[in-house]
């Protein structure tokens, strides 16, 4: 049976010695760890760090529910090996609000009702926030283009685009 880790270890210990990952930096803090570097980042976040806001949807980078930021760039955490991001700045949905103050895009998702079941929302917001960071005033076409690869099975796409657009229109650039 293939696994969620897709490929799975198939063995308790790797045959060749690999340097285990001793820490990762998530949401501005260093978390001590002792994991196989080939472990997908998603499961380290969820099972080792208890950060369950990044969701498993497909395990192969096709749905976007697991999206986190690595040095500010959206990445699918289910297909990144944790060893590849050790020492880099990882931001998850849990780290987006600052001092209890929601990120403008989180606020916009609430205001625009841009979620139904909410399972895709974390990934949508992470990619959307990165998009706005890079391009503070994106066109609708650009938003759609950049959000491709995020699946919302409830079909809230129009509201998600509207939420991203509303931040572009209303929030001063320095607050994004």
């Amino acid at each position: 049976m293939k696994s969620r880790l897709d490929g799975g270890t198939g063995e308790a210990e790797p045959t060749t010695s690999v340097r285990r990952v001793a820490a990762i930096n998530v949401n501005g803090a260093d978390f001590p760890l002792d994991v196989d570097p080939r472990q997908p980042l998603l499961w380290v976040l969820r099972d080792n760090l208890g950060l369950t806001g990044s969701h498993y949807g497909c395990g192969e980078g096709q749905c976007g529910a697991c999206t986190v930021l690595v040095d500010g760039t959206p990445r699918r955490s289910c297909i990144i090996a944790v060893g590849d991001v050790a020492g880099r700045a990882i931001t998850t949905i849990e780290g987006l609000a600052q001092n209890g103050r929601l990120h403008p895009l989180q606020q916009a998702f609430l205001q625009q009702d841009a979620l139904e079941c909410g399972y895709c929302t974390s990934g949508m917001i992470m990619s959307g926030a990165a998009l706005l960071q890079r391009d503070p005033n994106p066109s609708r076409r650009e938003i759609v283009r950049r959000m491709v690869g995020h699946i919302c099975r409830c079909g809230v796409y129009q509201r998600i685009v509207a939420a991203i657009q509303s931040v572009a229109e209303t929030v001063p650039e320095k607050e994004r």
Partner: protein
Amino acid sequence: MSGPTQRPAEVEPIATPPVEPERYELEERPTHTFALDRREVFRVLGGGIAVALLLGGDSHAQESGRAGRRGELPRDVAVWLHIDEAGAVTVYTGKVEVGQNIRTSLTQAVCEELRVPADAVRLVMGDTDRVPYDRGTFGSLTTPIMSSHLRRVAAAARATLLGLAAEQLKIDATNLEVSAGHVAHNASGRSLDFGELTGGREILRTVRDDEAVTEPTRWTISGTRVPKVGGRAFVTGQHLYPSDVTLPDMLHGKVLRPTALNSTLKRIDVSAAEAMTDVTVVHDGDFVGVAAPTLSGAEAALASIDAEWSSLPQQGDRELFDYLRTQATEESQGGGGRSRSDVAGSLEQGFENAEVTVEATYEVAYIQHVPLEPRAAIASWDEHGLTVQTGTQRPFGVRTELAEAFRLPEVRVRVIMPDTGSGYSGKHTGETAVEAARLARAAGRPVRVVWTREEEFTWAYFRPAGVIDVRAAAAADGALRPPGSFTTTTPAPPPSRLRIRSPTAASTSTVPTTRFGRAPTAGWPRLPTSSRAKPPSTSLPPHSVSTRCRCGSATSMPAGFATF
């Protein structure tokens, strides 16, 4: 549409169409019913005001509340709304939240009747130990039915609060007004909040489902835009979906999937898995599963199992529709269809006299619901019995499945449904709950099972495929003078509710199997191929059902229409 002498019976009323349950939704009454015990109510809930709803015998009321025969009073009632001694309002409903936002809309309905702000009401949903029985959340019935039930209990609670205030203030209730969580006498400015009215009380009110409610034209909260209840937790990643829930000492469970539907185990060797540290292996009939402290440990244990399955030849996409057509038998035509008692005339004769006939065939593929959150369950056993948190649209149905699977009385099984990452009416059954519970029982520790996307695409419940053959006859001018004849042929996969399998038919030609096999990162080792289960080849349920809808009348012209 019809002449003066024409019976209007040709047209079915459309206001409240009957909901056709799928076969797996038809179930026996729960085996146990319990009368409401007043002392027990307040022991569990604490003092205050509790409102129970006594559902009448009409078919819609039966949808929620325990099923009873038409005209028969339900045998039990349960508490739907409670205002505690501090004035906090809690509402209990068996409906569940899968993204349709009913936690918000039902809260609005209660707030409307209780005249309180939206944040003053807490909804307990889908917890079989705490909420009134409910058949399930499907068929778009929450708003027309559950919302109405909750309005009635909230209206009754409001009336009770008014009565208490009248007594306490010695002012006639008609001069009092409930608003913003207070009962006030505007003339004197005197006012009492809910807690001041419920403190030290134990009032149990039973209301019927004809309790008067606020006219829709006077609604101020329902139908308005309010923030999603608990919305902040969803946009900050704090909400715990079933697949996020953990328990102390929890193990991760994995289940060995057969190579095809309806396979039987021919040979199995679990010794390698059993030799692994901290791994629990269960081999019980055709169920084979493992549990381990880490997910990768469970996956490694599963991968070490050497199993050989024997399966029957199965149909692929190309043969599917021919298979359905040939397998549909008279015997299998029974279930599910709407029958009409007002058919008159002869179809055969109608076709003989037809000036124009039209025939068409429609093929409907198997459809995956693809809930973005796959099936997930976390099970734990204690001295009282079994508790499972799982994403299901039918918590009570899953409770029945678990009780039957483990030979337990239903009172010893509790199913809790955390707000779930969608379902699309595909999450009705409890296979994941049964799997987690079986592994947890063997391990003596809580076990969580979360299906992979591959499992969803190969073992989850699919929307049945079907072939629809339609034949219609008409006069040359297009009038449906001879009756139309509609013959439909669809398969009705039987739910194997208590077996560890599901009536899935995924075709190797449509499921991108190579996708699933792709390693995510270079260097991430692949499973040994010997233990890698192949996705099942297309498999078809053995039963088919053919229904024939007839409409019109050979003796009256012009005929009406039919929907199917």
